[in-house]
């Protein structure tokens, strides 16, 4: 089974290449798996193997409607993994209790299931480490950029 892995978060913080198998259960609050619609109904037909670039491109179609930017550029995608026809995405949200929680997770699943030949899409929502603006792409960070560059927790 072809196994590829990519993680913006891990590359940025821990310089590790492989996400531990236990990470979703130990770090995440919620996870889910959904199976695909019949392949005939999908938008994209592809004969070449599925790559992380395809997954990345699919995830860029999902926007956070409050901020107006896609999840990849917002730095909400911590990791992606392709295992044959199954894709696993590790993601976070800008804040706990985000009201768009369910919508974004379902959006990611649907975007992944639009890809040929994905039959199963799993989204692991994790809160540790918490999202931070330094995870955003430079272009989006320049647009959103706030009053502080580093997290501060007390005054």
């Amino acid at each position, binding site marked *: 089974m072809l196994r590829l892995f990519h993680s913006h978060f891990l590359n940025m913080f821990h310089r590790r290449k492989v996400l531990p198998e236990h990470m979703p259960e130990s770090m995440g609050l919620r996870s889910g798996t959904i199976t695909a619609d019949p392949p005939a109904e999908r*938008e994209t037909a592809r004969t070449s193997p599925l790559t992380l670039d395809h997954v990345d*491109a699919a995830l*860029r*179609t*999902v*926007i956070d*409607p*409050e*901020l*107006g*930017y*896609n999840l990849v*550029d917002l730095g909400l995608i911590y990791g992606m993994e392709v295992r044959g026809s199954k894709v696993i995405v590790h993601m976070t949200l*800008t*804040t*706990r*209790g*985000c*009201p*768009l929680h*369910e*919508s*974004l997770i*379902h*959006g*990611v*699943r*649907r*975007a*992944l299931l*639009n890809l040929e030949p994905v039959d199963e899409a799993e989204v692991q929502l994790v809160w540790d480490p918490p999202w*931070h*603006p330094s995870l955003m*792409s430079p*272009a*989006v960070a320049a*647009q*959103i*950029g*706030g*009053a*502080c560059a580093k*997290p*501060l*927790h*007390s*005054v």
Partner: protein
Amino acid sequence: MGLPLRFVIMGLVSLLATVVLLFLRPDVLSTYHYNQHVIAVSHLFVLGFILSVVSGALYQLVPVALETTLFSERLGRWHFGSHLIGFVGMVWMFWIWDMKQVGHFGSILAFGTGLFVYNLAKTLRTISRWDVVAIAVASSLVWLSLTVLAGLYLAAAKCWTFSPFYPIAAMHAHAHLGAIGVFVMLIVGLSYRLIPMFVLGDLQSHARAIASVALLNIGLAGLFVTVLIEHPWKLGFALVIIVGLALHGLELRVILARRRRRAIDWSVRSFLTAIALFSPLSVLAVVLCWPGLPATMLTTQLETVYGFLGLFGVVTLAIIGMLHKIVPFLVWIRRYSPDIGQRPVPTLAQLYSERLQIVAYWLFLAGLLSVSLATALAHAGAVRWSMCLLAASLALVTINMVRTLSHLLPSRQPTPRQALDHPVPRVHNTALSSSS
């Protein structure tokens, strides 16, 4: 239509009815506030607009903000019916001053409020982590129950002469219980979750936030009793509340200073402007609480200004700000959430016009200032024409809300053919250039 949206629409209709009534009867604000029409309009505004929107917002926000699920949607529907019948009947009976019927309709409203409090209390019991938001919501539910009971007591005291309290003092105590205990408490408590969420920030000092809510609770308990018995210590308890509000303002200031989103949108600005209005309101409160203050034409009119600025200024402006967040969110969830990941969807801000929102904001502030001055001077004509500014502002808000709600119309649903014509872009898309 979902429960939160029903309450919000009922609230908006009541708000428009209030503004029309104030335009037609400006004497409501330009004469002393203890008369049947003032009380009728106040209840139309407070129960019909504010409490309706607050109820709808809580049904939406409490499960989200506290990461739990609503105990019962069915109880919420019963609450909606009871609230509608109760407040419409109360306002009508206040207008014709039939206090026995006010008591009957008030009991229906109390029944609905009881269901609401029970529903949210059961919801709060399921949360695993009690934070400042949960404490503020729970406090507001207690104060809401007490406010409704105090209201029923006042209605009964009008039918039978058993109350030892001076009626105007009892009315003022009842009004503060609701305005500070329910509305200010919720503004303070929910802002600790909403403002960081919208500006991408963090609560900076949980202790400071808890202290602000605690001071509001302690101050209000004392204020209620001292206002009721007309004791001079009411100034001291008012100062306790003001210190709580100052801590809240300080916490928000620090949150904003350390936010991660540079731009502050106009919804958040409206909310923050409402918070800023606590300052002149606090000054007015201290003046009006001052021991031995004579009851002159000016001071009694300033009491009306105080109530107007509190309810129309602070609470309404905060609600209008958050309506531009809540209504687009509810509409987006219903209409576009199923499409995300499948086809392009608009952002929340693209569901309404920001330009209209900005004009409405400035018109509202101009209206608030001019009505306050006209009320202080007891000038009925000036009140009437100043109300036009507020009416124009609220008309723009309504247009924006209708514009947002129109996304739910079937004619705006994209057909599968349209969806294929506009496939999901495989680019670094940020937002769509135009709303759908």
